[in-house]
C-alpha cells in the first residue's frame, strides 16, 4: 500500500487534488484491530475548476495518464482499488482539514481522526457503520471532549445517544 500512497502524494504535489485523507474501514483500522475491506476509501478536496465545478474527472485523467485503470467504482493504484470520495459536506471538510499526518512505513500520509470517523459513521448510518462506531468506542482512544464538540457541531448527538445507550 506504500506505493499507492506515494502515488496519492504525487497527485497532491502536482495539484490534481488539493488534499487527501484515508477514511472508511482502512481509516478505522489505523485505530482498531484490522477490519476486512476490499477497497481503500480516500476522501479528497478537489481543486476548483475554472467553471467553479468540483469534479473527479481531472483526478481520474491524471491517474489514467500514469497508467492506472478503473475497476468498477475504484481506480486500481499499485494493486489497491482506491475509491475517491469528494468531501461533500461540512463534516467531511472539517474531517479533512483536521486529519492526522502519519507515516506509513517511510511514506507520509493522512488519516481522518478517530472522532471524525465516528461522526461520519453516525452520519452515514448503515449497519456496518454501527459496527464501526462500536469498534472505535471500544478500541480507539477517543478524545471525549473533542468528539462531543464534533457531534454538537454536526447535530449528531441524538444518533450517538441512540447508538450507544
Amino acid at each position, binding site marked *: 500500500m506504500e506505493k499507492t500512497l506515494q502515488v496519492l502524494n504525487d497527485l497532491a504535489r502536482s495539484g490534481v487534488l488539493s488534499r487527501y485523507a484515508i477514511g472508511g474501514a482502512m481509516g478505522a483500522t489505523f485505530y482498531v484491530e*484490522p477490519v476486512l475491506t476490499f477497497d481503500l476509501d480516500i476522501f479528497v478536496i478537489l481543486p476548483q475548476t475554472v467553471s467553479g465545478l468540483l469534479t473527479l474527472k481531472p483526478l481520474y485523467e491524471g491517474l489514467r495518464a500514469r497508467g492506472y485503470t478503473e475497476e468498477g467504482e475504484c481506480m486500481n493504484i499499485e*494493486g489497491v482499488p482506491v475509491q475517491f470520495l469528494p468531501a461533500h459536506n461540512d463534516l467531511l471538510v472539517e474531517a479533512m482539514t483536521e486529519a492526522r499526518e502519519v507515516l506509513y*512505513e517511510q511514506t507520509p500520509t493522512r488519516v481522518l481522526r478517530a472522532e471524525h470517523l465516528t461522526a461520519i459513521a453516525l452520519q452515514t448510518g448503515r449497519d456496518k457503520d454501527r459496527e464501526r462506531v462500536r469498534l472505535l468506542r471500544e478500541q480507539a482512544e477517543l478524545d471525549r471532549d473533542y468528539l462531543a464538540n464534533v457531534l454538537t457541531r454536526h447535530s449528531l448527538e441524538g444518533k450517538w445517544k441512540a447508538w450507544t445507550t
Partner: protein
Amino acid sequence: MEGMDNLKPEIERLITAKEQRRHKLAALSFAEKVRLVVKLQQMAVPVLRARGRAVRVWAIDDLKLVVPK
C-alpha cells in the same frame, strides 16, 4: 448444572484472552494491520466469490507478515 459452573471460569479466561488479543492487534503499526487485512482478504475471497461478490485480494508487495503471539 454443576458441570456448567465448572466451565464458567474457563469460558471467562477464553473471553479475556480473546479481548487481550484484539487489543494487541489494535496496537500494531498501520503497515502490520494492512498486511493482516490482506490475510483476511485471502481468507474471505473464496467464500464471497462463491456468493457472487466480485472481490479480490490486494496485489501489493509489502506483505512480510509480523503477527503478534
